[in-house]
């Protein structure tokens, strides 16, 4: 990775206060791009990693603000990135008025997220584009499975007393089991935020580990409720605990908190993922959710992933958007790119 030129040192070996590269590099110092990362199996709780968390809010906000001004994708590249964003979407409906028909409609949109005519104009007739997953309440897992059958689209169920996570543990675990039994491929769990405020890391770890066990072969996304956690340091610590407890993904929000996925929060969580991967050689996915509505935002998040974690985190295996409205905006942008004319909402099939 680095063109490194080593020369005989003229200086006495006893020189202090100078830096020499160590002879054998600690594994945690090897860049992620040069390591074969394993899926996360979790590790025993290591409180040192929690203690080592440092997040400087102002500096981090500056990085988040300039990160998006440092990168820009245009033309073909932008179209490609927008398609990539779609392929990483967990197309979501989590409303009190959800019905089976509504979920089926969502599934249909997920299978054909962009109109064929637009894809054709982009030279992508045979491009089998689809969203990564459909995300619903447990009640609609069965409908979603029906709606996505044969498409390869995963079905994700929110669980564990979503969105607050305040029902009794046994019920929360039972909820996971029922969704897994119903055939959900992925379970989005929420944590007990109070454990974070009280720094009850062992309790948080145990809770998430219990969820993980209940998930079995299903993929577990741990929602931290970052809007509730209030500080970026809390977000970083909770991220670390969730990963140690075996999270396949860490996810920002339920979409129900006052503040949802923001870039500074995303930056903290991706840095935590990087740190964890450095320490353990295991990769954890990331899912920002809530408040991501525009095509432009999708590009910003993708470039955040590319910059902070690398290209490995640019596909649905390690990156998801939790969104619904964003798809419509992306489709409009793609049509504009294909035709040169600005489009209108009603011209695109709704989800």
């Amino acid at each position: 990775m680095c063109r490194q030129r080593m020369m005989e040192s003229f200086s006495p070996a006893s020189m202090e206060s100078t830096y020499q590269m160590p002879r054998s590099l600690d594994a945690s110092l090897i860049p992620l791009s040069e390591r074969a990362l394993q899926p996360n199996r979790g590790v025993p709780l290591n409180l040192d990693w929690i203690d080592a968390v440092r997040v400087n809010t102002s500096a981090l906000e500056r990085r988040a603000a300039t990160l998006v001004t440092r990168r820009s994708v245009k033309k073909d590249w932008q179209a490609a990135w927008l398609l990539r964003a779609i392929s990483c979407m967990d197309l979501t409906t989590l409303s009190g008025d959800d019905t089976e028909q509504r979920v089926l409609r969502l599934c249909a949109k997920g299978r054909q997220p962009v109109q064929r005519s637009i894809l054709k104009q982009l030279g992508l007739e045979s491009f089998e584009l689809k969203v990564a997953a459909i995300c619903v309440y447990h009640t609609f897992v069965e409908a979603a499975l029906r709606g996505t059958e044969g498409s390869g689209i995963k079905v994700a169920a929110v669980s564990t007393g979503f969105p607050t996570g305040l029902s009794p543990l046994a019920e929360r675990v039972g909820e996971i089991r029922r969704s897994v039994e119903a055939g959900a491929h992925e379970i989005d769990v929420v944590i007990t935020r109070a454990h974070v405020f009280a720094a009850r890391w062992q309790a948080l770890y145990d809770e998430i580990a219990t969820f993980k066990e209940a998930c079995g072969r299903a993929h577990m996304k741990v929602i931290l409720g970052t809007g509730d956690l209030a500080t970026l340091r809390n977000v970083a610590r909770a991220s670390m605990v969730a990963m140690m407890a075996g999270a396949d993904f860490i996810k920002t929000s339920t979409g129900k908190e006052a503040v949802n996925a923001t870039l500074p929060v995303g930056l903290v969580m991706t840095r935590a993922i990087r740190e964890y991967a450095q320490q353990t050689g295991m990769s954890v996915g990331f899912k920002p959710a809530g408040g991501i509505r525009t095509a432009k935002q999708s590009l910003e998040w993708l470039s955040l992933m590319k910059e902070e974690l690398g290209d490995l985190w640019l596909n649905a295996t390690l990156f998801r958007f939790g969104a619904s409205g964003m798809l419509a905006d992306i489709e409009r942008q793609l049509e504009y790119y294909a035709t040169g004319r600005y489009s209108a909402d009603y011209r695109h099939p709704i989800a």
Partner: protein
Amino acid sequence: MRQDVTPPTIGTQSPEIMSKIAEKFVSMEYGPAIEDPKEALAWLDGHQRRFGHFINGAWQPPVAGEHFQTADPSTGQELATVAQGSAADIELAVKSARAAFAGWNSLSGHLRARYLYALARQVQKHSRRLAVLETLDNGKTIRESRDLDIPLVARHFYHHAGWAQLLEQEFPGYVACGVVGQIIPWNFPLLMLAWKIAPALAAGNTLVLKPAEFTPLTALAFAEICQEIGLPAGVVNIVTGDGRAGEALVNHPDVDKIAFTGSTEVGRAIRKATSQSHKRLSLELGGKSPFVIFDDADLDSAVEGLVDGIWLNQGQVCCAGSRLLMQESVADKLVAKIRTRMETLRVGAPLDKAVDVGAIVAPVQLQRIRRLVEQGIAEGANCCQPAAALPTTGLYYPPTLLTNVHPSSVVVQEEIFGPVLAAMTFRTLREAVELANNTTYGLAASVWSENINVALQVASQIKAGVVWVNSTNLFDAACGFGGYRESGYGREGGREGLLEYLEPKWFKNAPPVKNEELVANSEMRPTEPAGAAIDRTVKLYIAGKQARPDSGYSFPVHAPGGQLLGEAPLGNRKDIRNAVEAARKAESWGKATAHNRAQVLYYLGENLARRSEEIAARLARVTGEEQARKELSGAVERIFCYAAWADKFDGAVHNPPFRNVSLAMNEAIGTIGILCPGEAPLLGFLSLVLPAIALGNTVVAIPSEHYPLITADLYQLFDTSDLPAGVVNIVTGRSAELMKVLAEHDDLDAIWCLSSAQNAAQVKALSVGNLKQVFTNEGRSIDWFDPRQGEGRWFLQHAAQVKNIWVPYGE
């Protein structure tokens, strides 16, 4: 366990006919995102790509008819032909500025504010064209010119429109310097122009500005903006060209002040060239700024700080954090993080909106960077650069990290002015400060720690004009920017920056000082020690002790009438050496509380009052009884004045436009050499020494040649008033000779010479060794008996330097 999600398939087509978009869907590369330069090029075309100077509100062809080309460093493509300024052009420009001065200066602050506001507005309206032009001419990335340079330019004019409006209320008794000559560098062409022009105009000066040879275009675009807003002709004049034009400007006799930003080497030459004149001078020079990371820092954020610190503008930033100091325990981790981060820096076409590192400004600069890095490697440095290839054409240098370097390495000592970071380690806070200060420069520093105690402790101890806590390269019009040591003097931005373009009215109108040399004890031939009728033995006063002169000689001191008053020790360069050493050792005086310093001064006043009769009697033999009485009563009052000031010369908290406090702290300069005025042996001495020590400086003073015997009275006072040893040191002797040693002494931070114009000129010329700050009376007479002239803020401002500590906050 991981559940792999199948990525969308690309259908059955072979890769050859795969859509271009599908290809990019797979690669997820950024692709080019080029800012269209056509508007900026059209503007150049509108001028036929050929420019004259901007003099007296109009374009003027160069008198000598000489031109040169300016090119895009990323392509080598020629952009325009610009005029080479000569002495004749400078002459016209200065004349025009002088002619415009009276009118501009007599405008109300409000009217000047309107013009400055219009400049800000006009810059904003054409911000993108200016940004693109800057990028074309300089090679800096469009992201930086668009998001950093040009918005700060507008902000600077807005802020100073405000100062113009408030000038009379906020700076009563101050007037403009007059015609100002300004010379700016190529690294932030339009921003440096704004930093120079906005305060000059706000304060009521007119000016001639010479942009850097490599980057004249935005200055010329700005000239057009001045026309567009109807700025009165001659207020702003812009003469393009190389160093010859700058030299002519510096040497022009009708320029009242020179403001220069650029290399320390040229700064020295300017100091020397202006030494014979009474031009005021502010210098913003080079740096080798430390970037200190403690083990409790947010390391990822610190690494991003480095990106902004050393890779901003290809490292061609005077305050670039080019010396990385890492706490040993996190060094390996940090280096790994930095190397990883370097891999994602994109080097390439500056107009590409997704590029982090653009082109180096000129071939000569690229060669300098290459040469210094090669020298570093030859000295044993490990050189790490990202793997990605550089563009094949254009002037590029990759982001570079050098490890295994030492304080003695050339890459650690010399300003490289390129994207090159030299990394070292430290063990303790104390060592971090020591390493940070182990440089001849003192422009800026960046300190990273999550512990506010550590961060502020280090910020207070680093010798630099700007310290960024957990941040780097933050700039704002409301905050002063400028250096300690060989990074120059004077500040730009904020109240402290405006003062550089103002002078006390009384001082500007003060009559020339009478030639005092003749009256002095010019017959300073040594006499044999010991004499018949000598009432007391006078010694030097060094390190709180009465010391015999190294020479072993004394010289006679005569009254104006000719009678022998006594003998004073004949100090020489060794005595000065010892005195400076003692003063430097006494620096803890600066760390004493201001209250404590005030107490010592009050005590001094008490003791002087008690002994005033006898001191006056002795003094009367040279000054006459009346002056002696006046000096004594004035002296007691002056002591009270500075005892009062000691804990009241407050700094400020500036308000840059984000969540942050910028603490503008008035810090002692350090050790000051003072050549005291001849006309008032006691009051003159105290009028200079007191403000210096009130703020925590230590002093080596050379008393008036008229009456060096005052030394004996002074040290008895100091000894009895609990003044710590070494805070004031007094060396008597041939003042011209002692002054030369002081002016050349590299461990002296400032020299004050308030005697003759001739001495002032010599002090300025000799001060270039370490670019110590110089304060002189510019050959003007100061009435020490008038408190409006002889005491107060003006002296205190010379005894302090402003350090801006930026402390962002938030959780």
